[in-house]
């Protein structure tokens, strides 16, 4: 195992975050705070409690998931796409580094950044709404699994993309709508039976539902199903990355 290489990639990616602190940390925190102001204070004041939880507190898990998903994907996809774009990937390809080690470095850094961001947003939200975390270990497990899984997904997107438009395509056109429609701002039980059924086809619903359960023991689907879904997606991502390494897809000629 080339630990020096994993450490070098990890440190390099984390240094990039430090250089772009405004974009990496401050911007997501500000936009999440704005969600609290708009949905929590302005609109939330007019909405009744959702299953015994104030609306402002209810949306916290969904907002954290929104940030985690989008940032995990963008951090990991940019991390591997940019060396491809700039040509510096030659160094990674010519180094005594297996693709598994490269993934550990890139995905580890992207997941770490998302974890830090999620923690900051959680702390920020405590300034706006009274928070309770019923199952802290489950919450941490969901945070970790989500960060790792969606960083892997971002890595796949970064390998697949051959231009900046493609890099943004899946996060903007697929992931963000799925998060918004996955119960970030509402409970699926508030929907009509037809839309409740449709929502069950949205994988993000299971993440948000499980994560929210760790806070308030409120869930649209059972916690076991939520955990099963995220583990399935994690396995799918690992399988895809394994295939990329095996074939050299979009990396080697």
């Amino acid at each position, binding site marked *: 195992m080339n630990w020096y290489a994993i450490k070098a990639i990890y440190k390099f990616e984390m240094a990039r975050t430090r250089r772009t602190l405004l974009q990496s940390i401050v911007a997501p925190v500000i936009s999440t705070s704005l969600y609290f102001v708009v949905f929590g204070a302005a609109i939330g004041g007019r909405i009744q409690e959702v299953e015994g939880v104030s609306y402002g507190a209810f949306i916290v898990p969904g907002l954290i998931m929104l940030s985690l998903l989008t940032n995990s994907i963008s951090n990991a996809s940019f991390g591997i796409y940019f060396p491809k774009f700039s040509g510096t990937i030659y160094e990674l390809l010519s180094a005594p580094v297996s693709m598994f080690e490269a993934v550990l470095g890139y995905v580890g850094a992207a997941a770490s950044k998302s974890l830090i961001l999620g923690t900051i947003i959680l702390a920020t939200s405590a300034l706006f709404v009274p928070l309770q975390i019923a199952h802290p270990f489950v919450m941490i497990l969901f945070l970790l699994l989500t960060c790792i899984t969606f960083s892997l997904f971002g890595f796949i997107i970064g390998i697949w993309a051959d231009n900046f438009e493609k890099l943004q395509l899946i996060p903007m056109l697929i992931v963000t709508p799925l998060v918004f429609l996955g119960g970030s701002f509402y409970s699926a039980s508030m929907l009509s039976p037809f839309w409740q059924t449709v929502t069950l086809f949205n994988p993000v619903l299971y993440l948000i539902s499980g994560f929210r359960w760790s806070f308030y023991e409120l869930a649209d689907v059972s916690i076991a199903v939520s955990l099963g879904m995220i583990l399935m997606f994690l396995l799918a991502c690992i399988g895809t990355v394994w295939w990329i390494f095996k074939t050299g897809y979009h990396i*080697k*000629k």
Partner: protein
Amino acid sequence: MQDTIVSIRNLSKTYAGGFKALKQVNLDIRRGEIIALLGPNGAGKTTLISTICGLVNPSEGQVLVDGFDIIRDFRKTRSLIGLVPQELTTDAFESVLSTVTFSRGLFGKAPDPAHIEAVLRDLSLWEKRNNKIITLSGGMKRRLLIAKALSHEPRVLFLDEPTAGVDVELRKDMWALVRRLRDSGVTIILTTHYIEEAEEIADRIGIITRGELLLVEDKSELMRKLGKKQLIMDLLQPLADIPDTLAHYTLALSADGLQLTHTYDSQGADADITALLDDLRRVGIHFKDIRTTQSSLEEIFVKLVEEAR
């Protein structure tokens, strides 16, 4: 038999579109030599280097570096190799010191600030160590890429067009650096389409075109074997015609009749200059000056590539 550090056997590369970039290339690179791979654009030079370094998957054949297979023992071979790419590809917003330190880590070496400092000093980059790469000149960026490639102390260094787009002064500095590296025991493989570069610094020359290695030869041997020599004589009196008794020599007379040129192969039977001079004296041709010229590597290269077409 000379000690081989890189052994290439029947190496071929066919890209997905069907283009054959390398065709059954065989080459042994000797430890501690500077070998220049010459060839026109698109000849396969960069593909050959990229395959050995791990950037391109070979279609068939085998490459051994210090006895290790580049596929099976990729960790061992890649840790022995440094690569300086043709393009100035750098992380613009990184500092010089951090990017060179990153390279050493990437190649699995423990941090060694003293070595990094020595490399940067040797390449006149130490004063710029805290500067962002984006602020460096083109020449400095080129040296930085060399510093990155040397950060993990490779035994084999690949330089892909090291002086492309570099001014004359910097080019000479680069040649001096390459010689210093060779003297320190590093084997150098460089690709170039600057013939003068190969002529200036290479010990051996390989000529590659259309994915085929036409020949590999010691530079001096190549020029001796394939170089044509000319003996040019400035005559005292103009000559109307070349006498019939000299017809067996390859002689050419200038339009004004004052210069006689004898073209010969330095290894051929017509290389006996004394006999020619005796014959000239015998027929009453006297000259006031005499000199020889030898065809350059460029002429040899052009001739070989044209023959291959």
